């Protein structure tokens, strides 16, 4: 299955953060690569999974329901917004 760019989940991220974070820079815990959230690789399965384009480390996971959302950002060792 192919992936999309991080920009494709701009809507759900903005809902979570209250602002556009596609231009935020994140550092991958797997390989240290720093890149804008808009450029990470996004997969849609049972939830949203985003991975580092360099090492495939899971950067974030999002599960959305009608009234709840779960977010795991542990793949980023830091996010500069």
């Amino acid at each position, binding site marked *: 299955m192919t992936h999309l760019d991080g920009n494709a989940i701009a809507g759900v991220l903005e809902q979570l953060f209250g602002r556009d974070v596609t231009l935020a820079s994140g550092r991958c815990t797997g390989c240290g690569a720093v890149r804008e959230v808009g450029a990470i690789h996004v997969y849609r399965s049972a939830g949203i999974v985003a991975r580092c384009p360099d090492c495939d480390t*899971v950067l974030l996971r999002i599960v959305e*329901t009608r009234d709840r959302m779960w977010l795991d950002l542990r793949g980023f060792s830091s996010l500069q917004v």
Partner: protein
Amino acid sequence: MGIISRGFRGRGRGDDSGRLPPGQYVTDDFPVLSAGPTPHTPLDGWTFTVEGGAEPVRWTWEEFRALPTETVTKDIHCVTKWSKFDTDWEGVSVDTLLERVDHDRAYAVAFCDGGYTTNLPVEDLTGGKAWVAFAYDGEPLEPEHGGPARLLVPHLYFWKSAKWVRGLSLRDEDEPGFWETNGYHNYGDPWREQRYWGD
């Protein structure tokens, strides 16, 4: 409920045969959903391992394919709301695999190429409820659907039927897997609509 869009009919349809769990829609497609890039493990490097027993038990692809197999037809239910009836699979029953392992563990974690994991009670993997499937609809399982082999546990939501499975890790304590640690229900019974934490 959102604004109804006049005339929109999705791919899914309802069904009143009693075969459709609550909140699901029937589809004739087989959507591909994946949490990452499709792994491509050459068969000569593929192994399936059961750990956590008295000692690890491992099969190479040839050894795995020499085990007795079963052909089953099952309905499958994805937590993203699509269900597909009468899907045909061929695989090795997990009972067949676990018979060869000396253990008394209650829980298992399935682990896969690409790092995906999912957890199940051993009881849900045994008694004819689960297979390691290598063929779908009479053909070898395609990589995008989990080939060369995936776990098949049709009585639970399909995120438990882990693609690209490479083994089971048996343990005394339950350890939530990839989705179970991020909002999805720890058990996942479609008939009780156990999609998310707290359901």
